[in-house]
């Protein structure tokens, strides 16, 4: 009995020490970092042609924005990345973005993923990860 409890304690300790296996299937399905970068660049190119919201990006350093978006999408997809950008609330402060602005960006993202032939269920998983950020983006 005593031996059993020692075994159990050991098992628990080992279990706690190990990181739970991270689910990176979305990261893989998006084509890893290279695939995510193609999606982000496609989205930014779509935005550049999108007269509804292009003005919102007029003063933005696009190269930095691309790098931070790639990091963020990578983290959200469960990939081995670290997000080094500002918080969502911080980076959108003072812009007073509308729900329509947010949806326009979603549409540009979907078009970019379509162009990369990302299957709809994979697209839905990424959008589901990003949609909860809407509250920190609009009306700030």
């Amino acid at each position, binding site marked *: 009995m005593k031996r059993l409890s020692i075994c159990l304690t050991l098992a628990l300790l080992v279990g706690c020490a190990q990181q739970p296996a991270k689910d990176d299937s979305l990261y893989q399905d998006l084509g890893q970092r290279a695939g995510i970068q193609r999606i982000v660049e496609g989205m930014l190119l779509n935005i550049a042609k999108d007269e509804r919201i292009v003005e919102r990006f007029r003063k933005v350093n696009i190269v930095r924005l691309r790098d931070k978006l790639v990091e963020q999408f990578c983290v959200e997809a469960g990939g081995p990345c670290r997000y080094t950008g500002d918080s969502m609330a911080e980076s959108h402060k003072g812009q007073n973005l*509308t*729900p*329509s602005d947010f*949806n326009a960006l979603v549409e540009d993202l979907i078009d970019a993923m379509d162009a990369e032939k990302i299957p*709809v269920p994979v697209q*839905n*998983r990424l959008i*589901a990860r990003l*949609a909860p950020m*809407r509250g920190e983006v609009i009306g700030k």
Partner: protein
Amino acid sequence: MSYRTSLLLGCALATAAPLALADNGRLIATGGASNIEGNAGGGITPWAVITGYSEQGEWGATAFATHINLPDYNLDVAGMAVAYGNRVELSYAHQRFDISSLQHKLSLPDDNLSQDVFGVKVRLFGDVIYGDLPQVSLGIEYKHQNDFLIPSLVGAQRDADVEGYLTASRLFMGAAFGYNVLVNGGVRYSRANETGLLGFGGDRRDTRSLLKEGSVAVLFNPRWALGVEYREKPDNLSFAGESDWADVFVGYFPNKHLSFVLAYARLGEIATLDNQNGTYLSVQGNF
């Protein structure tokens, strides 16, 4: 061109011009189609969504036409709706129910029954996609049956009535093998016979009933949906049974200006004739 025609044309242009400027801030298909009563929904049920694609500070407007082809009847509907700010929707629909086969059989005085439906729907809270709460809307409809002779002969009590519905809609992302699922459910407080085409209230029951209605649709992508609908109906008239309605539909939203719904509708028994199951086709334009 006569004075009258040019006046009409002028009015049409005057109303169309500002509408053409309407923004489409919402995502595709989130305005739903137009149901047979003119408000945003599926085919036979309302959704909590507001017609068109208006977001905060934007206007939207839709017009639609629907044809339901049944073994013994046809239903034609045309109507329009305007919406503001993803908040409120005003709708109008005119329904014409062709009963010529029944007319021959029973030597009836009319070959059709028609009805006008005026509706207002208000989004109370929530959003169909974003945030924690589902989108919940309250709707009120004023219905006026225009050919009341036949309905009055079979026991209908009045030719006009007001009814309300409360409905909730929510998109569940990736819920069906990774595909998004739209769920709508609500209750209606109504005494309309065959949605009002046979008047309101009856010899068997003249008070409003609480009726359940809802639909579930899978979105294969943002432009294609496959779903089912169900609408409970009261049974106020003793001369014939009234069936609950159901359908299976395919919705296609090629862009934010046009949508199509094709359905197989099971409308059951209508005015003594059973097995009224047939095809439903609806086209909506968004301005």
